[in-house]
């Protein structure tokens, strides 16, 4: 499984937000998308998951252009986890997660026992099985992210796109989500996630897509791409980048305005 995004151009109506974004990822890779507000991270994600049309360029998964795939076919390849998620009704965790099975069910079908088995196994795998009957809205931000990750796993797509999953989470919840994501990467998932200021416990294999305000992007290993100069250029202001290692050996990157 691999995804290849080539010279992508996107925006709204006639406004081009970005004009030249390329990146690729194969099984077991984690891609961080870094960039200032308004550089088009959300637009990029909307296009990559097939929700919005691109202006130019190419997106292919396993060498197949995704443009002509149906929504159902796309859903089986790539899953999306939104940043803010407050459903209108207070569903139970199990009911939220089983919605990930939608692309495997026809319009008139309701989830079968097999679908609920997949749900329970997934919750078990992520260590949140005892939350299955809890109300989604009562969960902490980190638990909600885990539930949405579980839903994406039940969708059985190997590529998961996440919009700032660590935003507004405290350390405990950040650690919980980060650990889960690392576990999924190890299992062969491709995770593409956006972040604002920091990259927690990254591995040497992880890559970054740095989107700058001029609509271009640079893509590569984190330590090759991110430094004071490139960040200055991307954010349009002086930025201090701090690389470091925590006691357990995890690497981190932290960016601060100068």
């Amino acid at each position, binding site marked *: 499984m691999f995804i290849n995004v080539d010279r992508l151009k996107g925006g709204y109506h006639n406004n081009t937000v970005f004009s030249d974004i390329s990146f690729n990822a194969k099984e077991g890779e984690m891609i961080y998308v870094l960039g200032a507000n308004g550089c088009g991270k959300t637009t990029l994600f909307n296009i990559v998951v097939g929700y919005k049309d691109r202006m130019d360029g190419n997106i292919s998964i396993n060498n197949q252009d995704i443009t002509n795939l149906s929504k159902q076919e796309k*859903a089986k390849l790539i899953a999306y986890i*939104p940043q803010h998620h407050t459903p209108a*009704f207070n569903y139970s965790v199990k009911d939220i997660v089983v*919605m990930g099975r939608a692309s495997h069910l026809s*319009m008139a079908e*309701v989830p079968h026992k097999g679908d609920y088995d997949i749900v329970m196994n997934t919750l078990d795998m992520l260590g949140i099985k005892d939350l299955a009957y*809890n109300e989604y809205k009562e969960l902490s931000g980190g638990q909600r992210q885990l539930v949405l990750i579980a839903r994406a796993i039940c969708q059985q797509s190997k590529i998961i796109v996440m919009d700032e999953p660590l935003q507004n989470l405290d350390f405990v919840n950040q650690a919980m989500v980060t650990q889960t994501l690392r576990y999924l990467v190890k299992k062969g998932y491709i995770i593409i996630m956006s972040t604002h200021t920091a990259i927690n416990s990254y591995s040497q294999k992880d890559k970054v897509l740095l989107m700058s305000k001029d609509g271009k992007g640079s893509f590569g290993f984190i330590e090759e791409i991110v430094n004071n100069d490139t960040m200055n250029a991307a954010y349009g202001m002086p930025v201090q980048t701090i690389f470091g290692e925590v006691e357990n050996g995890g690497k981190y990157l932290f960016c601060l305005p100068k």
Partner: protein
Amino acid sequence: MKLIDNHPLKHYKTLNIVLLLASVVLIILSFGLGYYNMRLGDVLKVLLGRSTDQNGWIILGIRFPRIIAAYLIGAALSVSGAAYQGVLKNPLVSHDILGVASGAGMGAAIAIMLGLSSLYVQLFAFSSGIVAVFVAYSIAKHVMFDKRVSLILSGVLVGSLSFSVTSMLKYMADTSDQLPEITYWLMGSLSKVDMESVLFSLPFMIVGFIVIFIMRWRINVLTLSDIEASTMGINTKQSMLIVIIGATMLSSAAVCLGGLIGWIGLMIPHMTRALTGPQYTKLMPTSALMGGIFLLLMDNIVRSISIMEIPIGLMIAFIGAPFFYVLIRKGKRRDVY
């Protein structure tokens, strides 16, 4: 807090069986009620086909259509309200949010002004209810806001426009016969229901119920944000349209039969969520049963308390509003929204 579906099927099945039995008992008891009271024994005799006297005529000719109509209208409005709440992601809307009720009211008023027979009044009401929603759906595409907000605004717009036309017609109507008839129709009443009018609405209701039943799980996915539902493989526009068509069939067929009966489409889904949780495959069947029971109960009350019948729409507003307040009071339960 754990939801009721902690013990999934057990509670849910019991609840529906209880409601089903309650429906049957209530329907049988309803035959005995009215200006001419009948003993239960006589009612059962007629229902089992052992009597052909005056009792039989009252029960089968007059009360049977009315009882069936009350139950069906209650069920249809509840299911339609719940469906609209789902696709519009808004627990505050009800069956008339896209203008079906005011549209139907306008159609009925036009037919009454033209001096047409009651079947034509029903036909006009039904078709203008459908047309109102069609217009609201069509103009919503050109409204600048988010899809659902646009739909609600267009519905309010079409509703208020048709309400103005109705008011205009009332102003022009002959005060001795047309005006009372229009006013009475708008208040909602089942006193003029007969077998013919039930048979007119029934097929549309059946189609509506089937459409919503087919979509009963998918409505859950439609309550998520558009991008989520879409990346889960759902064609949101198409699915939404199907649900709206089904819900509109139900509400229009119900309104053209019983006039403007409010509250049910808002209140019953909320009451039902408190029992079943918000999941639509459970919510829908139980809503239908609850709505049927509620409206039949209300109709029995208006039939029994006085000879001068209170229009059922008013009765429901009288009873429904305080009852709903009790239901949504703070500190009761907050686990549904």
